[in-house]
Structure formats: structure tokens, C-alpha cells
């Protein structure tokens, strides 16, 4: 098992099970920018011998119909993800801070442009 797989799983979707190492080609996560002005968005994963090959495969696999103008690939094992077990405490800091939202503040209706 690859040492970098701390929990035996890595990647945002929990892919890259230890056996993927045995098959020789690591798993890469693929992110696409659909068009200018948009963020890259995760679309899936694929196996490739190296990052260059992952880029080529990502083009063939995820952009056969002009779905992207830019591709990122990243080895799944290099992604650090929050885990569901620590979900509640991990996201707790933002849970009780309603004052961060504009709707928290009462402003009279007749104040313009607010």
C-alpha cells in the first residue's frame, strides 16, 4: 500500500483505493473550466501513467463536445479532504455565526439602496 494513503483512501471522492497502486497507473482527478469566466469544476477521474497522459486522456474523455477550455489534472493521492466523520465539528465554526449574513441585520424598509 502506498504510504501516502493515510486512511487507505484518498482523493475528494475517496477513490485511489490501495489496489489502484498495484495496477501501476495512478488515479488522477479531472477539473474542467467549461468556458471563460467560470471556475474549474471537478468532473471525474481517470488512470494515467503520468500527468501529461492524464491531460490527454482527460481531453478525450471529458471534452469530446467542447465541454472545456481548460483542464486541470491532479493525482488523487495529493488531495487532502475533510472526512465525513469530522464533518460536524469541522464545519461548526461557521454554524453559529449568523451575523456573517446580510439578513441578520434589521434595516427599516424606507432606507434606500440597502
Amino acid at each position, binding site marked *: 500500500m502506498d504510504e501516502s494513503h493515510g486512511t487507505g483512501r484518498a482523493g475528494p471522492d475517496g*477513490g485511489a483505493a490501495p*489496489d489502484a497502486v498495484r*495496477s501501476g497507473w495512478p488515479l488522477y482527478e479531472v477539473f474542467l473550466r467549461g468556458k471563460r469566466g467560470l471556475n474549474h469544476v471537478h468532473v471525474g*477521474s*481517470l488512470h494515467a501513467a*503520468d500527468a501529461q497522459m492524464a491531460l490527454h486522456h482527460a481531453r478525450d474523455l471529458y471534452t469530446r463536445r467542447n465541454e472545456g477550455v481548460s483542464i486541470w489534472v491532479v493525482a488523487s493521492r495529493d488531495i487532502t479532504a475533510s472526512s465525513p466523520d*469530522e464533518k460536524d465539528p469541522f464545519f461548526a465554526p461557521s454554524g453559529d455565526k449568523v451575523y456573517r449574513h446580510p439578513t441578520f441585520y434589521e434595516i427599516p424598509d424606507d432606507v434606500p439602496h440597502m
Partner: protein
Amino acid sequence: MTTVSAPEELSGHFDRTLERGRRIEPRDWMPDAYRATMIRQIAQHAHSEIIGMQPEGNWITRAPSLRRKAILIAKVQDEAGHGMYLYSAAETLGADRADLTGKLISGRQKYSSIFNYPTLSYADVGVIGWLVDGAAICNQVPLCRSSYGPYARAMVRICKEESFHQRQGYELLLTMMRGTAAQRAMVQDATNRFWWPSLMMFGPPDDQSPNTAQSMAWGIKRHTNDELRQRFVDMTVPQAEKLGVTLPDPGLSWNAERGRYDFGAVDWAEFTAVVKGNGPCNAQRIARRQSAHADGAWVREAASAHAAKAARRASVGAA
């Protein structure tokens, strides 16, 4: 930071997520049986896409025009792509790609039995697009709402592409039906051969489908096999009329009371035989997949060697 949740708490969270119609995501806790069922379903679906390249791939070198050839290549390439999206989804559940491939080529996991029928003429390419992909769309559109997030997302992508598959098939058939009597006969013959196997694609009748109830409770399945089969028949009959072909079922008739078409009994003995490996092309399909895997070994090895060499050079350059 890590807190270990109690099992009841975990399964409660899973149940509540399903109740709210939310998606299960890969790192969520899920029952072992849910994971196993999901892996089996996605893997079988992925295998079907991969094996499904063969019946039509058979005609690429004999396409009647450059236009048809380009379309057919694009379609077969899509099938490969669909297989890859689905393998990727299965891997999020902890399945291993090499293991899945191994299970397919050793016959330990199945694929859709429709691909065990031969393609005897170019009209088959059209009929596969119209009927087989049409049935697949019926099956797959509800799966875009599957409870498992990565599968549902793969299905959205696949369904968009399947629409091209069905339309190119129907257009091909329309073209042939405007041609010679011999061409019209080819379309009718292909329809005769693929109609019943297409109905079998929805799986056994509901009273013989023991897993349906659990799969529906888990949001893995949204409609029963018989519901989807009926929907497919109702959609397809008017398309056949427009095309000018006869569906090979004397029992097919409009039932005004139900507002749906009645249709004849499917030969489930044939379905069972094909699933068990005794269809016309089972052995050929697996042999072809095995040889493709074996013939590709040197390419995989060369790519790995190239990657290793490039990595060595990069680390030497950096040092």
C-alpha cells in the same frame, strides 16, 4: 478533531439523507449491502458500455459513406467514454479498475445480454441506435436521480450523449426506408431481430425481480422493470409507424382503457439462456475483450516505462 460516530448515528444519517432526497457521496458512511449493490450495478453498466462497442464497431470498416463512418466512430468512442465515466464512479466506492476489468474478462461479472446478439447488416447499426439506445435511455434517465451522487452525475453526462446515438440511428433508418425495397427489407429484418431482446433489456418481470424493492427503497432504482418496459413500448410504437416498419408482435395493440399499448409475452427462457452464457455471441464478445486487453499490454508497459523515465529525468534535473 476526529470524532468517531456510533453506528446508529451513522445509519441514521444515511437514512435521513435518503429520506430528504439528498445524494449519498463517496466518503459518507453507507451500509455494506448498499455499497456492494452499487458497485455491482455500476460495474455491470460499465462493462455493458465497453462490450457494447463491439457489435457496432464490427461495421466501422464497412460503413457505406464517410459521413456514416465518422458518425459510427464517434458513437463507438462515446461508448468507451461512458464505460470510463462509470468505472470512475465505481472506483469512488473503493472498487479497483484492474479488478473490475479482470472480473469482466474472466466472466465473473456480467454485462447487458443485448450485446450477445450479432449485427448482421448495416441496418443493425440504425436499429441499435433506435431500439437498443432508446431502451437504454428509458432505463437511464431515471438513474440521473440515483441516490449515489457520482453515479447520478455520470448518468447525466451519458444521457446527453445517448440522445445523439438514438437520433443518428433513427435518421439512418429513415434514410434506408426511403431507399430500395432491399434496404427496407434490411430495416424490417433488423427490427425483427432486435425488438424482443430490446424489451428484455429492462430485466425480468417485477414478480421475478427480488431485489427491486430494496433497490427502490435505497433510491438506486426509481421505477420497476415492467413500468420502464411499458414506457418504452408506448414511446416506440408511434416511431415504428412513422418509420414504416412492423414490430414483430401480433399481440401489440392500443388499449384505450389503460391508455397504453398491450404487448405479447417476452420469451424469458431465451433471456435466461443468454444471461447464462448461451447467446449467439457471448464467447466471441469475451474473447475479443480478452485479446484487446492482451494486445494492449505492450502499450501500457511502454507508457509506464516512459513515465518512469520522465520522472527520473525530472528528479535528476531538479537535483
